[in-house]
């Protein structure tokens, strides 16, 4: 169905993501996984198949890609689109219309299907994908997972034979990943051919037929699913792959020796409009605590972290820092948030200027020292926007260190990161903790939680459901939150 022969490609301008001598055959009805480190070229391969290379991304291409008899380089994009459906990483940027119905119909409208056929197909699609509840909604108001499902539906409705998915789970929460898995199984049952590039591997057990490991733009190994999912841990880690079976990942941080609390939250109620988003939250934290914040979609985790930092005004509780009451403005002085999309936090035109931006009397030595520590010294004169996701994140963290912030909140720091980058973030967080900072990590990433956190705050149903130390005893509570003993067992 898909045949890639002797393909070389490099993007014009950058050396990133180039591929060499790729040969790959995917028979009809098969599901193939592309895995490997960030920048290894797996996304590039997906672009060969859906035609974005050479139509959308310019560069040097040699070799041939044939999909269902079509030579991709010689077929117009809209014809490829009828055969190959693509789902991408970022749910925010995949939709074209303002309402869900128009979005689901978007591809069919382009193919000029008659109205009756479209309406029938919309009905089928929403039923198959189980999104009848999302019909006639404003897309801007949907959650990330819901947006991703609508994007999927829009592609599914066009009835392509081949699906290409480029890191579709990156910004999804646990439940949404589970639904993604179900969708993939649905496609398989319908005999569709699937090419999926991913960092998160655990949810693909029982879905894929073959895994292709890519390193430095070349295919290194091809695994059967049995081989992949029985890779010994040391080999997997050496290859930079994420966990294959989450339940085997056990907490690795052994508590916090410092028990003396320095941060206290008392009887906190957080409002969102007229609604009480979180009620009666009280807890304390000590220096060196790395606190994982978990909860389902809409449980108020993000608003909670914005409130801690002093960014959300509508709340009634009391905050103590070193036994002194601190109001919103005072908390802004010592708190910092590393956002999921760190691009919003970078303002300057070079990495060096960024590190001192907005600080009145910047300590240049500290700035240089910090940048060096975080491995950013080689990029001092680069524009922050040209850095990779992980580097941008480290730059934002460097800024917080140079501003002497003592409490840091990370919002989904590992979305879209590969194993190596995840470990780097984890090490960084632990280092910050060792310096006596208080850390909150809002995340859906089980692997990262067990690797990094010593404590868990679990929010749901508008309250703090549980607050526990994370160790080998309490980890089963995490299992039940992530439902690890259910589907993936």
């Amino acid at each position, binding site marked *: 169905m898909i045949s890639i022969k002797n393909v070389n490609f490099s993007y014009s301008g950058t050396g990133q993501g180039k591929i060499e001598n790729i040969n790959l055959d995917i028979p009809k009805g098969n599901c193939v996984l592309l895995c490997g480190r960030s920048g290894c070229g797996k996304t590039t391969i997906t672009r060969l198949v*859906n*035609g*974005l290379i050479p*139509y*959308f991304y310019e560069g040097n291409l040699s070799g041939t890609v044939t999909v269902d008899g079509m030579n991709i380089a010689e077929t*117009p*994009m*809209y014809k490829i*689109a*009828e055969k190959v*459906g*693509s789902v*991408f990483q*970022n749910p*925010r*940027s*995949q*939709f*074209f*219309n*303002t*309402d869900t*119905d*128009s979005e689901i*119909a*978007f*591809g*069919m*409208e*382009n*193919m*000029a*299907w008659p*109205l009756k056929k*479209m309406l029938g197909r*919309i009905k089928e699609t929403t039923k198959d994908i189980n999104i009848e509840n999302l019909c006639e909604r404003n*897309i*801007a108001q949907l959650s990330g997972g819901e947006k991703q499902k609508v994007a999927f539906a*829009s*592609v599914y409705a*066009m009835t392509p034979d081949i699906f290409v998915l480029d890191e579709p789970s990156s910004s999804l929460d646990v439940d949404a990943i589970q639904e993604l898995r179900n969708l993939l199984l649905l496609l398989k049952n319908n005999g569709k051919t699937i090419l999926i590039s991913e960092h998160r591997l655990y949810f693909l057990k029982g879905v894929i037929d073959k895994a292709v490991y890519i390193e430095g733009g070349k295919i290194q190994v091809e695994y059967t699913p049995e081989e992949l999912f029985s890779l010994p841990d040391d080999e997997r880690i050496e290859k930079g792959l994420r966990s294959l079976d989450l339940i085997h990942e056990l907490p690795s941080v052994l508590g916090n020796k410092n028990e003396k609390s320095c941060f206290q939250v008392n009887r906190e109620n957080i409002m969102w409009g007229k609604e009480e988003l979180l009620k009666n939250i009280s807890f304390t934290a000590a220096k060196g605590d790395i606190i994982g914040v978990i909860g389902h979609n809409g449980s108020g985790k993000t608003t909670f972290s*914005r409130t801690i*930092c*002093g*960014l959300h005004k509508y709340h009634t509780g009391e905050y103590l820092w070193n036994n002194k009451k601190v109001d919103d403005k005072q908390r*802004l*002085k010592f*708190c910092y*948030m590393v*956002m999921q999309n760190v*691009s*919003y*936090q*970078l*303002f300057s035109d070079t990495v060096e200027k960024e590190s001192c*931006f*907005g*600080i009145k009397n910047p300590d240049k030595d500290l700035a240089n020292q910090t940048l060096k520590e975080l491995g950013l010294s080689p990029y001092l004169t680069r524009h922050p926007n040209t850095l990779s996701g992980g580097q941008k994140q480290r730059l934002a963290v460097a*800024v917080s260190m140079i*501003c002497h912030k003592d409490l840091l909140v990370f919002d989904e720091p590992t979305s879209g990161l590969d194993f190596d980058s995840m470990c780097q973030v984890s090490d960084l967080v632990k280092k910050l903790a060792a310096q006596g900072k208080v850390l909150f990590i809002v995340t859906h990433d089980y692997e990262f939680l067990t690797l990094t956190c010593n404590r868990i705050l679990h929010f749901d149903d508008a309250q703090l459901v549980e607050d526990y130390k994370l160790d080998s005893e309490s980890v089963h509570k995490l299992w039940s939150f992530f439902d690890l003993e259910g589907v993936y067992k």
Partner: protein
Amino acid sequence: MKYIHTDPRTKLFVLLICAVAITISPSLYYEGGLVFVILLYGILSGKPKYSIIMAIIYGGLLGLAIISNFYLSGALRIMFTTFSDFIGKMFPCVMMGGILVGTTQASEFMAALNHMHIPKNVVVPVTVMLRYIPMIQEDWGYIKDSMKLRDVAPSLKGLIKNPSQTVECIYVPLMMAASKMADEISAAAVTRGIENPKPRTCVKQIHFCVQDIIVAVVFVGYFLTAFL
């Protein structure tokens, strides 16, 4: 009570009629009458609160113009009368525009543009624009937060104290995000066949029906009274 639903094209037509009517308007009374007709249409279309409030504001402005004409003098009088009758001249269309925006879904508006055979070079940007506006608001929220965290206040005070830094903080992330979004949206659109040369069909159907004719006749009728 069931509200009447009119086709977006009818609303645009009515807007056009209002614009022409205002331009040739023979008297203040004629404008007042037009506002009254729009008020009725607004109430029937399901925007009674908005329409009534707007009508009251209009009344207030008229009152202000008349009172200031009688009781004020000099520069103040000019200022007030100019403002009130300038707004008065704009008012009927703005009020109608508000009703149009409030009663038309973006998808319906797009369907109207499609049915009016507006070329793709305009329809595609307009669609993207309508979809992107809420996202600017989201982006602004994030940017505001990160500015506060960096002690660069996103406020008037910060703007006066340190204008170029503050403005740069707003523009840079906003434009970077916009630029990235443009790439990703286009990739998604291209892989779903937007370049197909066949004329696009449209899942949202819009039709003219009896109420469209009635609304159009009423407005045209009122328009014609200007020549009586």
